[in-house]
């Protein structure tokens, strides 16, 4: 039986929550479970193009250990999930508009499938399970 699709709403800019979202998304995607990720609020700041890990990630008890030890980078995990499984990532159009950002120019190259609104994401999420971080 096919697994229910997994929908992840990532709103927190805290490194621990971004890391957990990346782990859940990538592992689910490579386990034959379709995944959609909606990135909004503070979380979008971590996906800005051209940042170093030090600039990108902040917050959480394990933050320092994530960046100093050999823990997979969250952006790399999202990319692996997309490459090896069925996964789509959407950038919240509200926060893009507020920051005057363009999903294709201002976010990590090749990671997002486009801007999206909350209503469509929530409607799609009725087909599966929704996790909010």
């Amino acid at each position, binding site marked *: 039986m096919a697994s229910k699709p997994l929908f992840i709403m990532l709103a927190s800019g805290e490194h621990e929550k971004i890391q957990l979202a990346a782990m859940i998304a990538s592992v689910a995607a490579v386990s034959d479970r379709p995944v959609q990720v909606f990135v909004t609020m503070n979380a979008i700041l971590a996906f800005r193009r051209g940042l170093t890990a030090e600039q990108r990630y902040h917050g959480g008890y394990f933050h320092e250990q994530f960046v100093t030890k050999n*823990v997979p980078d969250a952006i790399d*995990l999202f990319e692996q999930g997309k490459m090896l499984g069925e996964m789509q990532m959407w950038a919240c159009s509200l926060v893009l508009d507020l920051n005057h950002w363009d999903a294709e120019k201002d976010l990590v190259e090749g990671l997002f499938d486009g801007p999206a609104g909350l209503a469509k994401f929530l409607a799609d999420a009725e087909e599966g399970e929704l996790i909010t971080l």
Partner: protein
Amino acid sequence: MAERQTVDARGAFCPGPLMELIAALKLASVGDEVEVLSSDKGSVNDIPAWVAKVGHQFVGSTELDGYWSVVVKKAK
């Protein structure tokens, strides 16, 4: 003829060893085996669960000197 390759993921934390295994399996042929060397005990438990979920074959795991050898056969 089936082949075996080794992926050295020692030092990588979860889910690094699993993701490296999956990348190697993607490039392997059906019947090939991939051996992952992992110092992350969580991954040693995770890999058989992932293999069962997606339908590959878990060959076995062996504890070595501070790390594990986990072998998976590509079944599809």
